C-alpha cells in the first residue's frame, strides 16, 4: 500500500451489507478483528469470502495481549497466521496493551506500565509473534484512562518498544488526542517524538467527552476538527501509509462514514501527492 493514498474502513457485522450493496460506501480496503472471524463458518464465512474477493483486508487483533505475563498463546497466533494466508492479509496490527491477567481474558485493552522491565518483556513477545507470522507486527499506541506507576513518558515507552522489538507502529491519531487530553500533555509534541520511519499504518476515529477531565475512545462518534488538525500535522511528516477509519457503533447515517473517509483522503492527498 506504500506511496498511495488509501483510506480503509473497519468492517463490522452490523453494517456488512453496506460494503457490498451501498455504492456510497467506497473504502480502499477494510480492516477486521481476527478474533471475530477466525474459525467462523456458515453465513459469516461466506461473507468473509465475498469480502476478500472485493477488498484488500488488514487484520487488527484484540486478544494477543503482548503485555501479559502468561505464556504467549502460540496456537492462537498460528491460527491468525493461517487466517492471514487464507485471505491474503499483509498487515497484522495489535495493541500495545494487555488484555489478559492471571489466565483470564478481559476483552479490553489495558495499559501496560511504562517501565523498562515492560519494554524488555513486550519486545521479546513481539519478536516471538513476528517469528510465527513471518512479518513485522504493527503495534498500536492505545488510549488509556490511567497510567500505572510510570517510570517514563508514554512517548519514550512506545518508541523504545518499536525500536527494541523491530516492529512497525500503528499510530492512532485519535488515541494521541484522547491521551493528551486525559493525561494533560501536548499531542503535537507527542507526534514529534514518534519514530515516524516506523509508522506503517494510521487509525482515525471519533471519541466522546464524558466529563471535564475524561474522554473515552468510543469509536462511536464523528471525528472532531481538532483530531483532523492533528491528523494533518501527523501526515505532513509521513508519506503513503494506509489510513483506517474506525467506527464500532452509531451507524444511523452510513453516508457520514464516506464523508469522513473523503475528508481523510483530501488531507493525505494534500500532504502526500
Amino acid at each position, binding site marked *: 500500500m506504500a506511496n498511495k493514498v488509501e483510506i480503509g474502513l473497519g468492517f463490522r457485522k452490523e453494517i456488512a451489507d453496506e460494503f457490498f450493496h451501498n455504492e456510497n460506501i467506497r473504502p480502499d480496503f477494510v480492516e477486521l478483528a481476527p478474533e*471475530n472471524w477466525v474459525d467462523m463458518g456458515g453465513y459469516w464465512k461466506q461473507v468473509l469470502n465475498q469480502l476478500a474477493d472485493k477488498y484488500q483486508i488488514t487484520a487488527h487483533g484484540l486478544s494477543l495481549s503482548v503485555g501479559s505475563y502468561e505464556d504467549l498463546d502460540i496456537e492462537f497466533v498460528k491460527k491468525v497466521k493461517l487466517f492471514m494466508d487464507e485471505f491474503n492479509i499483509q498487515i497484522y496490527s495489535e495493541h500495545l496493551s494487555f488484555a489478559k491477567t492471571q489466565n483470564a481474558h*478481559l476483552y479490553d485493552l489495558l495499559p*501496560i506500565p511504562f517501565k523498562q*522491565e515492560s519494554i524488555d518483556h513486550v519486545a521479546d513477545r513481539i519478536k516471538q509473534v513476528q517469528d510465527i507470522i513471518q512479518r513485522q507486527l504493527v503495534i498500536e499506541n492505545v488510549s488509556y*484512562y*490511567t497510567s500505572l506507576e510510570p517510570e517514563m513518558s508514554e512517548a519514550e515507552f512506545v518508541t523504545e518498544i518499536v525500536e527494541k522489538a523491530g516492529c512497525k507502529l500503528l499510530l492512532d491519531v485519535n488515541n494521541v488526542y484522547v491521551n493528551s487530553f486525559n493525561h494533560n500533555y501536548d499531542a503535537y509534541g507527542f507526534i514529534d517524538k514518534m519514530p515516524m520511519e516506523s509508522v506503517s499504518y494510521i487509525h482515525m476515529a471519533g471519541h466522546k467527552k464524558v466529563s471535564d477531565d475524561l474522554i473515552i475512545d468510543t469509536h462511536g462518534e464523528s471525528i472532531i476538527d481538532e483530531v483532523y488538525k492533528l491528523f494533518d500535522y501527523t501526515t505532513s511528516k509521513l508519506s503513503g501509509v494506509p489510513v483506517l477509519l474506525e467506527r464500532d457503533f452509531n451507524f444511523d447515517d452510513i453516508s457520514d462514514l464516506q464523508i469522513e473517509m473523503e475528508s481523510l483522503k483530501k488531507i493525505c492527498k494534500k500532504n502526500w501527492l
Partner: protein
Amino acid sequence: MNNSDKKYYTAEELQNAIGSFVRSGDRIGIKNTKEKGFLKYRELIFNNIAGAMNIAFPISKSIIPDDLWEEMLQSFFTNHKAKTNFVWELPKEFVEYCKSEDYAKNLKLPFLNDLLNFEWMEMEIFNMKDIEHPAFVGSGNIETDILVVNPEHSLQVYDYPVHKIDIERPKIEKVKSFIVSYRHSETKDAEFVSLSFLDALLFEKITVDELAIKDALHIIEEEIQQEIPEELKQKSTQFFTKLLENNLFLGFKS
C-alpha cells in the same frame, strides 16, 4: 488515592492488581493513578461481557428477573477466568459456570441448564467452523437406502422440553427431550428439530452406525425385544422424509 496506597514493584504485580480490580471491584491502591480510570475499565469490560450474554441468552434473560440476571453476570465476571480469545464463544463458558454454581436449583428454575445450553447451541451451530460435506446422491429409497446426515449438527438430550418454553409462563414439566440443532447447508441458518424417543434412537442408528431406516428399525426391535407397531414405523419414516426435505439429511449414500 492516598499516601497509604500500596506500592507495586513489578509490572506483573501492577497488571494483576488491575485485572483483579476490574473483575471484582475490590478497591486497590496504586500510587499516581486515576481511580476514575480504573472504574471506567471495569464498566467497559463488564458491559462488553454482559452484552455478549444478553445476545446469546434472550430467553433465559427474559425469564430471570433483571436483578438476578445482573447478579449472575457479575458473579461470572468476577469469578470466572475466561479462556477463549473469541467473545462469541464466551457464552459457552457462561453455560458451564451456571451449571457449576447450580443456578437452576438456587433460582428454582430446574430447566435452566437445559435452556441455557439450548440457546447456546443455536449460536454455536450458526457460527461454528465449516465441516466438509460427505459425498451423497439426491435420490434414493427412504426405507432401504442409507441417509447421509448434514455433518453440521448436534444431538442434545435434555431433561426438559425447553424448545417449547413460554416466556410468560415458564413452568414446564420434566420430560426427556431430544433436540437436533443443525446448520442448513443452503440458507446457513441455525435450525432445530425435536425428536421422539424412537426417532432419536433411529437417528443414532442412521448417523452413527450408517444403517438404512428399515434395518435400523429391525435392530432397535431386537435391542428392545419388542415389535414396533407398523403405524409407528410409518410415522418415523415420514418424519425422516421430512428431515431430508429440511436439510438435516443431505441425501443418500452413493
